[in-house]
């Protein structure tokens, strides 16, 4: 955090000054470790074993926060009698279908009930007929003594009982004394008077079991009562100025703005079905139809009427996975003609760069927008495979357009930071030359396409014809007014054009317009709320008048949990939001994240529906039953509880289960993406992890061209321990060649005790660290670490595994720029062996994951 989010880390140092204990868990010793109270080196890819150890410690030592856990989590819920755990099945949960490579989650459900998950894969929900909350929440579905072997608490307890300090040592390379020290510090600093926070960088997601990494941390925090309370929580430290915004208003294939799912071909065939599958009978997602109809009104304007289901039939439908790597693999197979790449550099930053470039070579046309031509724009000119002579530019048929982009100082707009805070940046100067904002590009492209399709009478073109696209044009360059767009995102009423104060004003009758319901109110009263800049010194420590946080300018989500079941603060020290019995409403330092006048003693009647099903002690209002989920009965594709699996390419056999890797992970078994052996590959004996440096930014598009930053960090390097240096004859400042079966790169050697070998299972394991910023153009060049990585992904979110894989390291400059994507595997052998999984999994779900096994036969493109 000190390296990649230095200014955010100031607040960690401030907490330390006030007495907080800082624990840093990282394979490497970094600037964060240098100022932390405890640094715990951990073997890359073993975090669930470590966090699972913490869960086991918390439960066995009775350190969990009983009042919080019983009232605010699903600990007491009873689970189906058909459920079987990884304890019973040697690393698999019940419902595994080895032929399809997928789980059927029906045995994971609560007893007698299927709930709609607040996030994740809602399509796993079996749907009709809808369970009505009032009818199903009754005493016999819960065991508040938490002793029934099939209550969530006991299942969690049993599941993690194997994660002892000894197992943590075996899996993570952490000594039991060190583990105890961390566990004790964490528990001592949690409870009524104290809270602890987890901060992770999104490398945590880059594992084939990445979602479950974060889930494990969430279970720790729920057990300790650290969610929804000041100083608690789990903070995803995101690495881009608006990466949170890119998820909220997603340029992601599976979502519409505000986390509404994209329609799925096989069963969201009309609006009625789409709403049925996605709204929840209880909890806040019962409001789902209001948000969807308001979005359709924002997009299709007067054309959207009740009789045509608000133009729902204009929306395209997805069938299976259309995520980045799935699309690029299709591209490499010449199934995609055109590609827009805006402010992104996949030829460097995405997995298996050579396969990315193979995809680019097989396009008809490519549009790249950036400050300067990046490696993605120039893949045809001087990429490693071109320099090596494997491919010639005159053989590449892709037509390439490079458009220079405007900088943030040359355009108006909002970024959403890692705390969900929208902040407006104002245009300071006009963009130079032909540089234009993406807003300009996409608006003018849309105007041209509307014009091109104007004569058309084909139904396929009606969505474009009716698309609302009138934004005010500013200045000689005809820049669309970003504030106009923000106003549409925030929403307004159609009759009197009144800007909404918040999403509670939205309706499902077509009278309200809102482009993204969670952002509703960011243009409250016609005022650009994200542009508010009241100085920090002139407001409270919560600083509600700086920018605007979604939802409803709330700075801490689920903050009703900061009060006890009676609505009183858990302690004076951790007071944040509470029930005021005189005014009969919730109040506090922040905007309460609850129904403001719902008293703590409210309990829903048997006929309650929608939001009325949320009781006065249900802080987690987005959940169907208002409780935080220690155990996920629905929504995840790889199990209801986190389980330690080894990375796709590991040096170790799984020390906990016979099942080696996440059985539901996504693999791309193809000649241009070969894999190593699942463990102990003699050709690739070392662990590699990639990371960022303080002075550079991701794939380098915003740093490798900036001289000041290139001077600070001029060259690609590989970080190795003195022990590995000796083993491999590596010299500090000299060269090393690092390879996988997919590619080989050269880097300067940095020999440092910051890297430590681990001794596990009787072996000494060496890790190498690789920054991933460099590639062949820019003002500072070097080989790209992602030439080494593979297409392999977490099944829930299709995010790649780049933080733990196996490599070979030899001294000297021995790269011949070989790439599996052009020449085939660097080492000749079988592409995938049966030893990858124990027990064997016949098929990995690529392009068809996420669909309920019995529900669809889609995936025509897979």
């Amino acid at each position, binding site marked *: 955090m000190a390296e990649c989010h230095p200014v955010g880390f100031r607040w960690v140092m401030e907490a330390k000054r006030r007495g907080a204990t800082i624990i840093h868990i990282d394979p490497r010793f970094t600037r964060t470790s240098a100022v932390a109270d405890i640094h715990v080196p951990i073997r890359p890819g073993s975090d669930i074993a470590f966090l699972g150890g913490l869960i086991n410690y918390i439960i066995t030592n009775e350190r969990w926060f009983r009042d919080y856990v019983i009232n605010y989590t699903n600990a007491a819920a009873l689970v189906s009698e058909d459920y079987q755990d990884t304890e019973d099945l040697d690393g698999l949960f019940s419902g595994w279908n080895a032929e399809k490579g997928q789980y059927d989650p029906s045995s994971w459900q609560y007893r007698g009930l299927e709930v709609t998950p607040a996030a994740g894969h809602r399509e796993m929900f079996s749907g009709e007929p809808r369970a009505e909350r009032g009818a199903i929440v009754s005493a016999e579905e819960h065991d508040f003594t938490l002793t029934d072997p099939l209550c969530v608490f006991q299942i969690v307890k049993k599941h993690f009982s194997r994660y002892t300090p000894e197992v943590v040592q075996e899996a993570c390379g952490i000594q039991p004394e060190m583990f105890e020290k961390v566990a004790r510090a964490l528990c001592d600093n949690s409870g009524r008077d104290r809270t602890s926070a987890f901060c992770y960088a999104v490398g945590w997601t880059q594992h084939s079991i990445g979602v479950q990494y974060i889930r494990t941390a969430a279970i720790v925090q729920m057990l300790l009562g650290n969610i929804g309370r000041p100083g608690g929580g789990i903070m995803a430290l995101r690495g881009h100025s608006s990466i949170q915004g890119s998820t909220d208003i997603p340029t992601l294939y599976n979502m519409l703005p505000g986390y509404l799912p994209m329609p799925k071909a096989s069963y969201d065939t009309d609006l009625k079905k789409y709403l049925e599958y996605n709204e929840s009978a209880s909890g806040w997602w019962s409001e789902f139809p209001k948000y969807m109809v308001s979005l359709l009104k924002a997009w299709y304007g007067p054309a959207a009427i009740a009789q045509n289901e608000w133009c729902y039939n204009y929306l395209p439908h997805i069938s299976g996975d259309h995520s980045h790597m799935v699309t690029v693999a299709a591209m490499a197979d010449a199934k995609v003609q*055109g590609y827009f790449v805006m402010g992104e550099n996949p030829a460097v930053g995405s997995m298996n760069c050579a396969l990315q470039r193979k995809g680019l070579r097989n396009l008809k046309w490519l549009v790249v927008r950036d400050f300067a031509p990046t490696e993605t724009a120039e893949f045809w000119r001087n990429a490693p495979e071109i320099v090596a002579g494997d491919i010639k530019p005159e053989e590449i048929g892709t037509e390439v357009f490079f458009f220079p982009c405007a900088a943030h100082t040359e355009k108006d707009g909002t970024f959403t930071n890692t705390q969900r805070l929208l902040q407006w940046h104002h245009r300071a100067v006009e963009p130079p030359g032909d540089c234009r904002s993406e807003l300009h590009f996409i608006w003018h492209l849309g105007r041209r396409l509307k014009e091109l399709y104007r004569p058309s009478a084909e139904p396929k073109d009606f969505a474009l014809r009716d698309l609302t696209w009138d934004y005010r044009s500013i200045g000689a360059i005809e820049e669309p007014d970003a504030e106009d767009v923000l106003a549409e995102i925030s929403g307004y009423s159609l009759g009197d054009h009144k800007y909404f104060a918040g999403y509670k004003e939205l309706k499902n009758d077509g009278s309200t317009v809102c482009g993204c319901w969670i952002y509703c109110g960011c243009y409250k009263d016609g005022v650009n709320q994200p542009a508010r800049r009241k100085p920090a010194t002139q407001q409270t420590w919560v600083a509600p008048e700086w920018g605007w946080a979604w939802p409803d300018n709330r700075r801490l989500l689920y903050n009703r949990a900061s009060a006890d079941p009676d609505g009183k603060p858990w302690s004076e020290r951790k007071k944040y939001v509470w029930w005021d019995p005189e005014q009969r409403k919730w109040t506090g330092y922040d905007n309460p994240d609850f129904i403001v006048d719902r008293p703590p003693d409210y309990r829903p009647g048997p006929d309650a529906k929608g939001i009325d099903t949320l009781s006065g002690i249900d802080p987690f209002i987005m959940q169907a039953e208002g409780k935080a989920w220690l155990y996920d009965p629905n929504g995840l594709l790889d199990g209801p509880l986190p389980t330690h699996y080894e990375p796709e390419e590991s040096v170790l056999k799984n020390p906990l289960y016979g099942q080696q890797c996440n059985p539901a992970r996504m693999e791309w078994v193809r000649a241009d993406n070969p894999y190593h052996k699942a463990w102990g590959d003699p050709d690739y004996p070392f662990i590699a992890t990639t990371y960022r440096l303080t002075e550079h930014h991701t794939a380098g598009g*915003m740093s490798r061209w900036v001289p000041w930053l290139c001077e600070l960090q001029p060259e690609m390097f590989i970080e190795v321990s003195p022990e590995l240096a000796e083993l491999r004859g590596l010299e500090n400042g000299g060269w090393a060649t690092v390879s996988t079966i997919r590619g080989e790169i050269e880097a300067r050697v940095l020999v440092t005790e910051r890297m430590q070998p681990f001794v596990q299972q009787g072996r000494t394991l060496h890790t190498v660290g690789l920054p991933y910023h460099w590639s062949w153009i820019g003002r500072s060049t070097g080989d790209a670490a992602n030439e080494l990585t593979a297409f392999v992904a977490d099944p829930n979110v299709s995010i790649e595994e780049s933080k733990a894989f196996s490599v070979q390291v030899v001294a000297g400059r021995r790269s011949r720029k070989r790439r599996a994507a052009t020449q085939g595997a660097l080492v000749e052998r079988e592409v995938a062996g049966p030893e990858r999984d124990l027990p064997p999994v016949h098929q990995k779900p690529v392009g068809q994951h996420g669909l309920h096994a019995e529900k669809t036969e889609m995936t025509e493109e897979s």
Partner: protein
Amino acid sequence: MAKKSWLLKWPALRQLANGDLAGLGDTAMSERTHSLKPRTSTADKIVGSVCPYCGVGCGQKVYVKDGKIMDIEGDYDSPISEGCLCPKGSATMQLVTGTHRGMNVLYRRPYGKRWEKIPLKQAMDMVADRVKQTRDETWEDQHEQGHPLRRTLGIAHLGGATLDNEENYLIKKLFTALGVIQVENQARI
């Protein structure tokens, strides 16, 4: 008065008169030092902004003179950053004003060996034509079993996560209307 001010030009006397015995305070300043001003003091305007690099969201102030950026500094008012910027944030000035920035649209013909400069409007027209042609060629109206698809798999998009929310909104809005579903972002990576 005149005499006093002449005498007090002698630093030692000034130190004594002001009780600045260490000689490290205001009294040690020369006239020149006194008259120095920050290079940003002549700015025509100061524009509120946000750092474009990581997700912390540090406040920036952009100093503008004669339509050009003079400097970019941390914003002390920000409750997030209180005036601080990291090495990358501090280099923002060079990022946005550096000579590396492309000013022209570049075009590479199929099988070509070099870039050509083309006018922006022509390039926009060409891209719109490509989109229409690909979309029309690769349109899928429904699945063979009758499920609606209304889409094209012939076009894809990948966006960086330093784009504005408003930009992402229009990207998603337009591409969805076109039936382009392979819309992705750094957020997936």
